[in-house]
C-alpha cells in the first residue's frame, strides 16, 4: 500500500471531506433513471460503480463531474478539478498526441511552454515515447489512444478522477496492463477516483469501495469495502473475493441481469 492511501484512510478529517451523494433521483423525460440513491466515498479512495448496463452509472458519473444536475437530491464534494476518461478515448483527430494531452490545460491559466512541458512529462508517465507524441490519433493503436486519454485527464492535475468504463474497449491483455497502470498512478497520487465498470473482477482489482447498483431506476443494491491494499491483490485474491461478493444475494441479483461471466 502506498503511504498516501494509508494517511488518507487514517485521517478522519480527510475522510469527512469526501464525496457524498444524498438521495439523488433523476429522470430523462418520463423515464426515471435514478431513484433515491445515496453513496459516500472518503477522499483518496477508489469507489467503483458497478451494475447492469443502462442502469444509470454514467448518468451518476456525469452528475459527480458536474455535467448534469440531479432533479432531486444533492451531490456534494470538495473537489474543484474533476477529470474524465471515457470508454471511447474521444481524442481530437486533428491534434497529435501531445496536443491532445495538453487539451484540458486550455481551461487553466498556463503558458504555452508550461503546457508542452507538462504534456511531455505525461507522455512518459503513461508509457508513451516522445515520438508517439507527434503521432495523430489515427496513427495510434487502441491501447495507446486510451493512454493518451488518461494522460489528458492527469494533465490538469485533477483532485477527482472519473473513469467511465475506460478499459472495456480493450482486449484482455491490454486491459490488465492499463488497470495496473491506473492503479499505480492513483496510488502514487492519492487520487480520489470513481470508476464505472460492469466487470466485477475489475472492480475488485481496483476499488476500495464497491457500490452495486440495481437495474433501472437505480438505487444502491449492495455496498462492499475491500481492505486489502491494491498492490497486494493477486489473481487468487481477486477470484476469491469475486466469489465472496457474489455469495451476497443482493449483489448477485443486481448483477444477474447481465449474466456475469
Amino acid at each position, binding site marked *: 500500500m502506498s503511504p498516501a492511501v494509508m494517511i488518507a484512510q487514517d485521517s478522519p478529517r480527510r475522510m469527512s471531506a469526501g464525496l457524498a451523494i444524498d438521495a439523488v433521483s433523476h429522470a430523462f423525460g418520463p423515464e426515471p433513471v435514478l431513484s433515491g440513491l445515496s453513496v459516500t466515498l472518503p477522499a483518496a479512495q477508489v469507489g467503483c460503480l458497478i451494475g447492469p448496463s443502462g442502469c444509470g452509472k454514467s448518468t451518476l458519473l456525469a452528475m459527480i463531474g458536474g455535467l448534469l444536475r440531479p432533479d432531486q437530491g444533492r451531490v456534494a464534494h470538495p473537489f474543484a478539478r474533476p*477529470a474524465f476518461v471515457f470508454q471511447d478515448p*474521444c481524442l*481530437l483527430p486533428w*491534434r497529435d498526441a501531445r496536443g491532445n494531452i495538453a487539451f*484540458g490545460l*486550455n481551461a487553466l491559466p498556463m503558458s*504555452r511552454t508550461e503546457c508542452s512541458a507538462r504534456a511531455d512529462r505525461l507522455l512518459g508517465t503513461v508509457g508513451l515515447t516522445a515520438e508517439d507524441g507527434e503521432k495523430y490519433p489515427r496513427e495510434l493503436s487502441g491501447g495507446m489512444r486510451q493512454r493518451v486519454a488518461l494522460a489528458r485527464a492527469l494533465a490538469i492535475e485533477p483532485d477527482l478522477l472519473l473513469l467511465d468504463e475506460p478499459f472495456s474497449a480493450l482486449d484482455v491483455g491490454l486491459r490488465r496492463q492499463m488497470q495496473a497502470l491506473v492503479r499505480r498512478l492513483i496510488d502514487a497520487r492519492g487520487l480520489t477516483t470513481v470508476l464505472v465498470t460492469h466487470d466485477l473482477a475489475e472492480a475488485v482489482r481496483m476499488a476500495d469501495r464497491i457500490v452495486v447498483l440495481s437495474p433501472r431506476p437505480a438505487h444502491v443494491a449492495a455496498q462492499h469495502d475491500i481492505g486489502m491494499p491494491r498492490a497486494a491483490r493477486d489473481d487468487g485474491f481477486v477470484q476469491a473475493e469475486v466469489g465472496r461478493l457474489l455469495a451476497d444475494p443482493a449483489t448477485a441479483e443486481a448483477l444477474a441481469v447481465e449474466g456475469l461471466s
Partner: protein
Amino acid sequence: MIPLRTRLAQALDYVWGGWGAAASLLLLVALWEAGHEAYGTLVLPSPRETFAMLWRMTLDGRVWPAVVETGRNALAGFLGGVLVGGLLGALAGLSDMMRRLLAPVSTLMLGIPAIAWVVLSLLWFGGSGLAVVFTVLVTSAPVVFASAAEGVRSLDGALQRMARAFRVPRRVLVWDVYLPHMLSYLFPAVATALALSWKVAVMTELLSGAGGIGDGLATARVQVDTVKAMAWILVVVALLLAVEYLLLEPLRRHVLGWRRELPGAETRDPQGI
C-alpha cells in the same frame, strides 16, 4: 508550434514534389507530340507550335484579360455557391424540418447537368457575365450543401461532451473542436466546387460568347485554328493546375495534415473518432 526550419524543409519538399508532377505531364506532352507526328497540325498541333502561339497571344495582350475575366466570373459564382450551399446546408444540419425540405432539392440540383444550366442561364441572362456567374453558382452550391449539412449535424457529439467535461473556454471549443470538424467536412467539397467552377465558367463562356477564355476558344473554333484552340486549352489547364497545386494542395496539407495515411492504415473515416 512547428519550428520555422521544419516548415521551410516541408515547403521545399512540397515544391520539389513538382518534379514528379512535371515528369508525368512531360510524358503526356510526349504522347501529344507523337499524336501530332501521326496526324498532322490540323488535327493536333505540335506542343512547340502551341507553346509558341500561347507566347505570341500573351505578348499581344489577349491572354491576361481573358484569364482575369474568367477568373472573376468563376470566383464570383464559386463564392456565391459556397455561401448559398454552406448556409442552406448549415440550416439543414441544424433543423430536421429544413433537412426534409432541402435535401431532395439539393439532390435534384446535383443531378441536373451543367450544360442544361448553361442553356437556361443564356435564356434568362443573355450573353452576359451574369450568365456565367449564375451557372457556376447553381452547379457548385449543391456540392457544398451536403457536406455542410453533415458537418453541422455531427457537431454535437462525443467530442463536444469531452470538451465540456474538461471545461475548456468557448474560444477553445470553437477554434479547436468546431472549426477543424467543419473544415474536415467542408474542405473536400469546397475544393471540388472550386475545380468545377473553372470548367463550368469556361463552358458557359464558350456557348454564350460572354468573353473570357471560353470566348477565345469559340473564336478559335470558328476560325478552324487548332493551334489557337490548343493554346487556349493550355491556358485553362495551366490555371487548373495552378489552383490545385499552388492553392488547394498546400491548404489541404495544412488543414487536413492529421489525416495523413500510414502505409497499411485503415480506410479513412471522415470523423476519425
